[in-house]
């Protein structure tokens, strides 16, 4: 029965969105993790989604979504002159992560909405399947 595939599709959508939400949480938690060198500073992480295609015949519609990877933001880090800071380097600079709070908030809302819509699809599919199982009774 092909209707069971909807659950798989919705599940891939939900897991991808929850990973995205996880990355948002990580970015926001580390928004103020300062460090004393450019290499050690936290950079905002973003997920890369890719449509999951049917292996047997690639021409048919996608069967879900998958996380192709996580990329680190290439936006410049914030360099701040603060010689009193305990983590300041020998020139008196500290480095702040390139996390954009506004962007992350918007990202969080988008992820939770998408998660909700996938959850709704799964519950609608469940109702339809239950009705189908009761057919003829």
């Amino acid at each position, binding site marked *: *029965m*092909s*209707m069971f*595939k*909807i659950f798989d*599709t*919705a599940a*891939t*959508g939900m897991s*991808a*969105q929850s990973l*995205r939400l996880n990355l948002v949480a990580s970015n926001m938690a580390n928004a103020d993790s300062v460090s004393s060198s450019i290499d050690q500073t936290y950079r905002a992480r973003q997920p*890369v*989604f*890719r*449509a999951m295609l049917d292996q047997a*015949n690639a*021409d*048919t*519609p*996608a*069967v*879900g*979504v998958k996380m192709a990877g996580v990329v680190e933001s290439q936006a410049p880090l914030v360099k701040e002159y603060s010689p009193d800071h305990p983590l300041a380097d020998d020139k008196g600079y500290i480095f702040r992560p390139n996390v954009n709070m506004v962007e992350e908030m918007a990202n969080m809302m*988008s*992820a939770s*909405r*998408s998660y909700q*819509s*996938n959850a*709704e*699809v799964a519950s*609608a*599919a469940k*109702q*339809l399947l239950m*009705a*189908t199982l009761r*057919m*003829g009774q």
Partner: protein
Amino acid sequence: MNFDDAFGTHPQALMLRARRSEVIASNLANADTPGYKARDFDFHQLLKRETEGSVRVLTTHQRHIQPDNGMIPPAQMLYRTPMQPSLDGNTVDTEQEHTAFSANSMEYQASLSFLNGKISGLRKAIRGD
């Protein structure tokens, strides 16, 4: 009355509705995938094809393959025309897909209740009560 066509087009309609809800579920799962193109198919055209032109092949050996009726031919799988193009090339309009999904679910349930009516009618005829 023949049992084979007692149900009319409803079994095929139900199967196509289930397939369509699968396609729309996939569109919704990929609502944030860059470059993903939303897909759908023309239900009426495919139902016509299923009911009029579907050819049943006689299978006399276990390795004979019956053409799969559940498969939508790739040429019939269309792409949705985007109303608001987005910068990342994604053409999924979540609202449109949601509406299509719930309309499709309603129509699935309509087919299901037609089938239920037919089944209870047949059962009544068999029992004679």
